[in-house]
């Protein structure tokens, strides 16, 4: 195979020049970065179920927004915040999982209602659920970037308290950090990340982008900063490859994102097993403290 055809295969025509692909590259990269950052805290706190539920709950918002002719992002943001608020208010020990699950299905049921009473165009529903790269407009890119920069700024500002609260909640409280406030910051971060990620990766699969690379990175990285950087790197790499595959095959990007995230996790597990016999895993989905 000549070098020309290899290049032609690697860079099919239009992958960087088409307007919607440019939007997808920019928005996708931003989304991968914030997923890596927020996912780091999700895995550290063992809040994967929240990361799973909030993007899903936000689906109803997008469906409702389409119904009343508003911006999808606005609908996503409102419902993401409402879902996290509901989870935060109802949490209580192990009940957390139960409350999260019930808030989640109620929000999805509402989404079903919006879908059925409005004649939402089928591909639109589909892209909301599973992600579609052609669906991203220039205006959405702008807002995704704004949200991403805000998340980065908030994390940079609250990095140490967030870390302290996630690792040793009791000590953090003794030192005068307010746990409720930090929980609230965390939930807002997850909601913001969900709002930005859902249009790209889909409501059902934003979760894999947020948890997969971060879980893999937490296996490999020994220091928090290393783990976070690794997570961001793996999320970005997964998203770029997924974007390329999705462009070539025109299959939904969510499928590739979740497959690559599974791959990253499995490789990290195998690596860690060979390195030390057994792996340490941060975080838990079941009965976790928010």
């Amino acid at each position, binding site marked *: 195979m000549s070098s020309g055809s290899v290049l032609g295969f690697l860079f099919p025509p239009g992958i960087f020049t088409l307007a919607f692909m440019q939007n997808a590259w920019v928005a996708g990269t931003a989304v991968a970065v914030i997923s890596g950052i927020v996912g780091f805290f999700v895995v550290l706190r063992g809040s994967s179920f929240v990361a799973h539920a909030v993007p899903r709950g936000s689906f109803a918002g997008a469906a409702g927004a389409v119904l009343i002719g508003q911006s999808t992002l606005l609908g996503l943001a409102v419902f993401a915040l409402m879902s996290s608020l509901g989870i935060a208010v109802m949490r209580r020990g192990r009940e957390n999982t139960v409350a999260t699950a019930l*808030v989640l299905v109620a929000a999805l049921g509402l989404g*079903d209602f919006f*879908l059925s009473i409005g004649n939402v165009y089928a591909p639109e529903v589909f892209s909301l659920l599973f992600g579609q790269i052609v669906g991203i407009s220039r205006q959405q890119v702008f807002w995704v970037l704004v949200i991403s920069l805000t998340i980065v700024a908030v994390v940079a500002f609250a990095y140490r308290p967030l870390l302290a609260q996630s690792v040793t909640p009791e000590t953090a409280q003794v030192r005068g950090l307010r746990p409720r406030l930090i929980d609230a910051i965390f939930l807002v971060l997850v909601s913001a990340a969900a709002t930005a990620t859902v249009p790209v990766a889909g409501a059902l699969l934003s979760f894999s982008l947020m948890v997969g690379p971060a879980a893999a990175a937490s296996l490999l990285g020994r220091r928090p900063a290393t783990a976070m950087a690794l997570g961001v790197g793996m999320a970005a790499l997964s998203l770029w490859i997924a974007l390329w595959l999705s462009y070539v095959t025109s299959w939904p990007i969510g499928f590739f994102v*979740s*497959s690559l995230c599974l791959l990253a996790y499995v490789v990290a597990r195998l690596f860690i097993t060979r390195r030390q016999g057994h792996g340490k895993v941060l975080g*838990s*989905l079941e009965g976790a403290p928010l």
Partner: protein
Amino acid sequence: MNYLWQWLWPPGLWANSDVRTAFFIGTSVAIAGAVVGVFVIIRGQAFSGHALGDVGATGAAGAYLIGISALWGFLAAGFSSGIAMESLGDRVRERDIATGVVLAFMLGLSALLLYFISTSTGTAGAPIAILFGSLFTVNPAITPEVFALTALSILIIALIYRPLLFSSVTAEVARVRGVSARLLGLMFMVALVIAVEESALVVGALLSTALLIGPAASAVQVTRKPTSAIFLAVLIALGQIWLGIILAYDSFFWPPVDRGWPVSFFITSLALLTYLTMRLGTSIWRHRRSRRPRTTSTSSLVASDAQGGTLT
């Protein structure tokens, strides 16, 4: 009064064959979900139950593509994932993360299969039906299978009732007494998969948790015995599904469009509503009770503890 009756039992409700099928299948599914759900709550497996519903979508999409009933697709995906999840390891934390990542992958796969369905049919009808379900469009021919599966799941729960409870509450003590947590976990997983996937068939893969966890979570708020929790959960589940069917039937005459609101929407909303009411009610009741002055030493736990302590 007459008006209320009309509303609860709208004319033509029972004459409608879709409603009759929905009623029979819904009743059967609600019972299985409630009975198994109480143990899901006791064992703290809400996330596993939820994940099993989600992965069911992959199976149902596959079943649609090869042209068999969605129920078998749901069950096949549920059983393979459930057994994989059960054998992934003993350490809960590791298993949960692994469950999450595998769940994400299965959803990705279902995205692909549903994409194939929607491109081949040109509509989102089938994918939406798999994800969000619709009790009124379930094929009446599978009613006997649903009944048999419900009976099987209840039979399994009846068989393992005591050791399952023992092992779920005090796992180590049960192990010392020769109860195999692994065997019970697998047997319970079979009952769980049946309940979840039946429920996924009825309210959709994404909403199956509403019938599994909703009634049970509401029931454990107000009961102190497993048997009464199961009994109450079944009652709540039946109320939830019957009311859901009636409301959905009524909603054909409701605005904004005259084609009815989705029955899954009613069922999930009722699940959350019941749970919230029960929780609020019990916390208000407990609050008021704890403020009442204690009269006898056995009237409250605190007092009886002090009594026990003075024996030393």
